[in-house]
């Protein structure tokens, strides 16, 4: 530019116009040096500025943003069959401060206390004056609090969002829904199942976006689940039992409508979830089922074709095998018909039934009903049943009345359901399943005639036998009790029992099956008994009374009111 300027001047000189050169020449030399000096000064200034810029550009800036947000993976909601939320992700914001950037700690705390009145003034003051790079002030704020604090505009405060799993139903569905760990990965129950279905892969690849995850719909009905949990919790207290549990099964589809076991834990604060007695007794507990197993023995005798309803079994004398003897609890000491064996819960009669079928046939039948194999279902906590390695005659006798093999209550319930629903064995499921889907994978295990016989026996037992306590007017309940001596350290205890109760309703076409257990219950009041009818049976009756209407079973009194029946004919 300067060159141009000079050139121009030269041009004007050459043009031949009248120019007074003297004046220019007098100052010409000085002017040039001035220009050069000015240039040098400006160059120096700009060089310093750009040099400083380059220097600053190479500096690593002070990283004081606190720890990075923990990337917590999104999980789908878990809902019950009516869409009620059982588990959901909620976003919570946590407030942190960077004390180095706080201008006025007093003012900051004063402002903050307008939103968080419960904040500890002194402690917070020390935190803010500590000169540390990062301090947590308050974890898990609500969105309202967060926006209020943001409105305050205090410098040096910031938020980190964290995702937290929340279980609105708390203890009610704790064992079914399960738990997640701190990284939001399922560690038990259906949460773990969901992870195994590919969610963990999605999360690993970063594709698990909250919006794209559809809720997982369980077969559980929260209302019935509450009833079940409420009744067994009350039962646990009433009978001072070690544990109690119940399951409500839809016999037509194999769906588990409700299942609970106490003692349990609060999934929102699972500090005691790992305790020794916190065990899902229904699917992960192995027990000798006692007389409930006589359902299977009777069904087996009928299904083998070797016995009919009219068959008679000699229960007049105890059976002796070696030095062991099998007695009856409610001994009749006479020859009993097959329905009587069931009605009076005769151990001797049941053993005779098993004898009729034979050891191999007995074993095969229990395997056919899936009672001695590991159950296939979504829940990860499933125990493997135990049976004697070699079945001898005495094993077959004792197993006939439910001692000598251990299985899970849920499995026994599924086996009973097969005897009620027309002979179809279906794996229990905790997900929604239609009847058609269930039938597609069901296996026919017993003949229609056997099912008919078993329905009759259950109904009879609720009218005249031990299942009277579970009778609910209008709902045609049928059932069977089971009182087993509890095995403690490998020996049968004389004081403590393990009680079970199986009930199905309505008996003219069973739709639901309720299976309750009471582990080591005591008599409710002194002088009362502690057999299954007095505790497990009562719980089952209460569950049916409270939940039948919700399950859509229509009450029908025509069976109980003979006069009405006649007038309508």
């Amino acid at each position, binding site marked *: 530019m300067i060159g141009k300027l000079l050139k121009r001047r030269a041009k004007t000189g050459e043009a031949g116009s009248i120019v007074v050169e003297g004046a220019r020449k007098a100052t010409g030399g000085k002017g040039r040096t001035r220009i050069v000096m000015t240039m040098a000064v400006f160059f120096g200034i700009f060089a310093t500025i750009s040099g400083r810029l380059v220097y600053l550009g190479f500096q690593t800036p002070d990283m004081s943003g606190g720890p990075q947000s923990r990337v917590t993976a999104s999980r789908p909601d878990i809902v019950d069959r009516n869409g009620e*939320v059982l588990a*959901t992700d909620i*976003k919570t914001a946590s407030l942190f401060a960077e004390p180095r950037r706080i201008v006025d700690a007093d003012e900051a705390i004063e402002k903050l206390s307008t939103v968080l009145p419960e904040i500890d003034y002194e402690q917070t003051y020390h935190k803010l004056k500590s000169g540390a790079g990062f301090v947590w002030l308050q974890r898990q704020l*609500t969105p309202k609090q967060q926006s209020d604090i943001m409105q305050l505009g205090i410098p040096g405060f910031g938020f980190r969002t964290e995702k937290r799993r929340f279980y609105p139903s*708390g203890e*009610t569905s704790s064992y079914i829904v399960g738990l997640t760990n701190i990284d939001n990965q399922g560690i038990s129950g259906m949460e773990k199942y969901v992870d195994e279905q590919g969610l963990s892969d999605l999360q690993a690849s970063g594709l698990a976006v909250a919006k794209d995850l559809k809720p997982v719909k369980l077969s559980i009905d929260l209302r019935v689940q509450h009833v079940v949990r409420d009744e067994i919790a009350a039962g646990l207290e009433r009978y001072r039992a070690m544990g109690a549990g119940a399951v409500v099964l839809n016999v037509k589809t194999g769906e588990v409508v409700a299942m609970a076991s106490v003692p349990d834990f609060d999934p929102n604060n699972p500090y005691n979830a790992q305790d020794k007695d916190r065990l899902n007794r229904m699917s992960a507990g192995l027990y000798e089922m006692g007389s409930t197993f006589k359902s299977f023995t009777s069904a087996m005798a009928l299904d083998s074709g070797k016995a009919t309803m009219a068959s008679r079994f000699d229960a007049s004398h105890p059976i002796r095998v070696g030095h062991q003897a099998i007695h009856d609890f409610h001994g009749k000491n006479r020859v009993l018909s097959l329905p009587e064996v069931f009605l009076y819960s005769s151990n001797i009669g049941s053993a005779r039934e098993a004898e009729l079928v034979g050891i191999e046939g007995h074993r095969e039948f229990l395997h056919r009903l899936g009672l001695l194999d590991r159950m296939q279902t979504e829940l990860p906590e499933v125990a493997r049943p135990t049976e004697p390695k070699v079945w001898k005659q005495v094993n077959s006798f004792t197993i006939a009345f439910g001692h000598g093999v251990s299985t899970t209550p849920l499995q026994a319930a599924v086996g009973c359901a097969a005897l009620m629903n027309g002979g179809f064995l279906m794996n229990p499921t905790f997900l929604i399943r239609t009847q058609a889907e269930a039938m597609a994978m069901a296996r026919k295990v017993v003949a229609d005639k056997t099912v008919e016989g078993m329905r009759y026996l259950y109904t009879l037992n609720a009218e005249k036998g031990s299942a009277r306590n579970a009778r*609910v007017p209008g709902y045609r309940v049928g059932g069977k009790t089971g009182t087993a001596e509890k095995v403690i350290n490998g020996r049968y205890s004389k004081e403590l029992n393990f009680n079970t109760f199986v009930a199905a309703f309505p008996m003219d076409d069973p739709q639901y099956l309720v299976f309750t257990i009471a582990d080591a219950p005591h008599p409710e009041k002194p002088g009362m008994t502690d057999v299954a009818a007095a505790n497990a049976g009562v719980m089952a009756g209460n569950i049916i009374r409270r939940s039948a*209407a919700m399950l859509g079973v229509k009450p029908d009194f025509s069976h109980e009111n003979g006069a009405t029946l006649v007038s309508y004919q």
Partner: protein
Amino acid sequence: MFRTSDIVLIAVMVSAAALTYKTKREAEEQLAAVQKIHAQIRYEEDTIDLLKADWSLLTQPSRLQKLAELYKSQLELQPVSARQIVGIGDLPAKALDIEDILKGRQGGMADNSDKAPSGDRDPVVTGGIAQ
């Protein structure tokens, strides 16, 4: 010296610069507005999630049961017993009084069992008393 075309060009240039500036400014404003709305949507979504959780917490059967027990004396609510649940078919037939018999309306129900409903008459046979 400046010619008219120069002035026009300068004017065009200046106005073009002004327009560009204005457009840019407006785009920035719009972008800021969009970001604000996005933030608001996120906030609303989070609030919806939270309120849903809150709702399910408030409608927990266990909570409702506790409340029902607590206010039992005021509300006088009782669980529905099985005898209170009936279908339309379980309703007893209307008792006949003397006027029905005089007008020959007894057992009228049985006549229209195979006809379409007419007037206010019930097409369903609910059982007869006078046969």
